[in-house]
């Protein structure tokens, strides 16, 4: 099977240009509301997707990628978003003026869609086999037996195990990857000409992502489907695209074959977007330090017990004897897939949850077993920044009050705390007068800066960043990473950085700890672990990282970079 890593040779473009496009979007405009003067969410974009071709539609959040795909499917929320100009043609047939009935006929038979969140895209109260069956019942005259045969066959094609069992299973019994396979089976069971995949792997772990990408590509080859693939992830683009279309604020910035766009982007925006992709090659290692150890975890374990009314309860080991050390001014990364226990460890260290056993030493003081009351003076030495800045700040409290709350709790006067809040906002690159504003007045990146300022307000020795840049667009992500680096240099703070993204880990960590199923699989200097992994699991993780063979920031494949320096 194709490893899915090497860049593919461009397919014979001449031929696909001669055939009629499967999807032809021409000068499409989508506006808000029914009024003629509503703002344009999509502002005159033109895209073609040909048979056997994958077009990747890339862009940051709010660029209009998803609206484009929903317009094509005719699934825009009625009355809120309205196509006002242009045309969308599917194999020559106009979709914007098609009746609801005709659109229903075309869906699943001619065009199908898979969505980002496999966890919520399937109906939780209907067995998955029946959900696929619905497509066949709506669009074919096959009898029950023939339908089931076809479904099981399709489920085998998407490489699901034990298809009979899964056929009768409810979605919550399946993993995220399995659910996405069901979605793909549902989309392709009638062999549509066009498949729209809207961030289909964004919610999945890297190893699962790799499998799904390979699957989509193989099925496309077998069925000759045209694929419109929407993603924000340049790594995924490098894996799957034949051609790339870059979108920004509802407009098309640049479009071209994959190699051309990655090597010679013509537009400034595309260049910036590519430059912001963190490299998988770890940054140059900083010299070892003899600074004091500020944080130590020894055999830290967390076991969740499920109590049962009758019989034995279930035990889930979320963290199993995790040991790590962090010195002043250094950054330690904990990497792993979902469910690996990385966040559990972080939360135990900050004592948001109580560890079951093992110890945590903060600046030499054991804090894992002291009472909440005695913990109070130590809390200020360790502060945490969470993943989602949209939910981690209280929307009804001003930014200044949020930042000042911590110091005030530790006896600082209100005036002094607010003065400090202003200084901190400037430190994180925001204007000091932001103190009197509310979180909703800021963008995601700015909010994360505020969250960092809030964490720094107590002058902690250790800053814990739990997936702190995962919800941000790459360009914003790069800025926040830079900010953390700068703050570390200025304040000598130690950072515990939890992430699932190896690229991010490679760019910010001095040491990394790789976790799987609650256990530490491998740990050591980032430069060592991420280039010469000793353990099979670490290797698998690295191999699954999308776009591994491509050095985006330097507009060349990694191999050429190696050749150039050699």
């Amino acid at each position: 099977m194709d490893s899915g890593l090497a860049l593919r040779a461009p397919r014979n473009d001449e031929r696909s240009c001669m055939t009629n496009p499967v999807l032809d979007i021409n000068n499409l405009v989508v506006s808000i509301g029914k009024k003629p003067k509503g703002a344009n969410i999509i502002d005159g974009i033109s895209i073609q997707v040909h048979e056997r071709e994958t077009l990747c539609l890339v862009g940051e959040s709010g660029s209009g990628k998803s609206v484009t795909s929903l317009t094509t499917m005719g699934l825009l929320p009625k009355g809120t978003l309205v196509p006002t100009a242009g045309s969308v043609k599917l194999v020559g047939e106009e979709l914007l003026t098609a009746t609801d009935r005709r659109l229903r006929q075309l869906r699943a038979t001619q065009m199908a869609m898979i969505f980002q969140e496999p966890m919520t895209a399937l109906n939780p109260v209907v067995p998955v086999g029946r959900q696929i069956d619905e497509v066949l019942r709506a669009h074919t005259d096959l009898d029950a037996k023939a339908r089931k045969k076809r479904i099981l066959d399709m489920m085998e094609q998407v490489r699901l195990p034990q298809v009979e069992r899964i056929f009768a299973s409810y979605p919550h019994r399946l993993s995220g990857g399995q659910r996405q396979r069901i979605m793909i089976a549902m989309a392709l069971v009638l062999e549509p000409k066009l498949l729209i995949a809207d961030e289909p792997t964004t919610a999945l772990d890297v190893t699962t992502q790799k499998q799904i990408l390979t699957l989509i590509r193989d099925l496309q080859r077998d069925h000759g489907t045209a694929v419109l693939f929407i993603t924000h992830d340049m790594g995924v683009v490098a894996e799957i695209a034949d051609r790339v279309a870059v979108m920004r604020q509802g407009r098309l910035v640049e479009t071209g074959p994959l190699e051309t766009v990655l090597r010679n982007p013509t537009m400034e925006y595309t260049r910036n977007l590519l430059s912001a992709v963190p490299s998988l090659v770890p940054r140059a290692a900083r010299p070892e330090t003899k600074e004091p150890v500020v944080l130590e975890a020894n055999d830290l374990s967390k076991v969740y017990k499920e109590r049962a009314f009758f019989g034995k309860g279930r035990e889930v080991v979320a963290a199993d004897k995790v040991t790590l050390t962090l010195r002043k001014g250094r950054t330690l990364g904990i990497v792993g897939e979902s469910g690996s226990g990385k966040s559990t460890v972080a939360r135990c260290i900050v004592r948001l949850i109580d560890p079951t056993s093992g110890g945590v030493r903060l600046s030499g003081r054991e804090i894992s077993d002291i009472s909440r009351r005695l913990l109070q003076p130590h809390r200020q030495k360790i502060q945490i920044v969470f993943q989602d800045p949209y939910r981690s700040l209280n929307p009804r409290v001003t930014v200044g009050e949020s930042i000042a709350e911590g110091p005030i709790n530790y006896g600082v006067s209100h005036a002094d705390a607010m003065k400090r809040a202003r200084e901190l906002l400037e430190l994180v690159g925001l204007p000091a007068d932001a103190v009197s504003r509310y979180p909703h007045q800021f963008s995601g990146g700015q909010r994360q800066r505020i969250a960092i300022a809030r964490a720094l307000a107590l002058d902690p020795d250790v800053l814990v960043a739990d997936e702190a840049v995962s919800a941000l667009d790459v360009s914003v992500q790069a800025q926040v990473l830079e900010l953390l680096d700068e703050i570390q240099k200025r304040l000598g703070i130690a950072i515990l950085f939890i992430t699932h993204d190896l690229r991010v880990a490679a760019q910010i960590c001095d040491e990394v700890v790789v976790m799987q199923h609650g256990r530490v699989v491998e740990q050591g200097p980032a430069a060592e672990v991420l280039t010469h992994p000793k353990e099979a699991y670490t290797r698998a993780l690295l191999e699954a990282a999308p776009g591994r063979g491509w050095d985006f920031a330097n507009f060349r494949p990694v191999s050429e970079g190696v050749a150039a320096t050699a």
Partner: protein
Amino acid sequence: MLGYLLRRIFAAVPVMGVVALFVFLLLRLTPGDPAAILAGDNATPERLERIRASLGLNEPLIVQFITWVNKLLHGDLGTSLISNLPVMKMIGQRVEPSISIALSTIILAVIVAVPLGVIAAWKHGTWIDRFVMGLSVLGFSVPVFVVGYLLIEVFAIDLRWVPVQGFRSISNGFGPFFERMILPTCALSFIYIALIARMTRAAMLDVLGEDYVRTARAKGINEVAVMMRHALRNAAVPVITVIGTGFALLISGVVVTESVFNIPGIGRLTVDAVLARDYPVIQAMILLTSLIYVVVNLLIDVAYTLLDPRIRY
């Protein structure tokens, strides 16, 4: 599933135990001599003594409780102080009308309200939605006796389609039973239609924003299937809760309707007992009402597990 059912029934035992204890203490802890309370104001000393003996009031409290529970378990709820009939028999006569009305009302309400709620949510923000919600406000605001007397005036007195009031047991034939059920059922269901329609609409609106509804539409199936198969089943849990508690309320608390239509149900029995301080009947009614709530809640929980495979116990 069977194991779950047994566990739930088992778990209901302590609840009923606490209720029984409360009911038992109700009489014993009231200031004054329980026998005097029971006997009323004009009791002779002999009668008081007889009541004391029959209640075992001279025994220690714990012995009294055990004796009382023992009788309870054998279906002996005591004797009414007013009618001198066994309480069990009195309640037995009243159960049929009450359950009949509760059932017919809830069935009518569900049949009318659920489609109304679904359509309102489907046509969210249109005049249809506003019309259904307007009806719902009306249903909440008009008192049941107004609806009841209006219905009697029009359909029983003017049009003479149905009898004015009364109740016939179903054992005397379905016809007479049914024609006497129509008006009270319609009157009572008004407010339940309003309540359930509102609940259905709210739950449907929540669910219609879910990803799987979008998936269903992306499959190209028709809107009816999207609404019924994908949205309604997921919206059912809160709706079932309202229907269940509504049903429990209906059995024990429809005094006004029973009075308007002159139906000998449990509601009126309770009110009469309270007014006459008929303690054995009051005790029995508290026990019965608690039992109804426990059973209905059990049924609601069982319905949850049938509707949503993710709910496991």
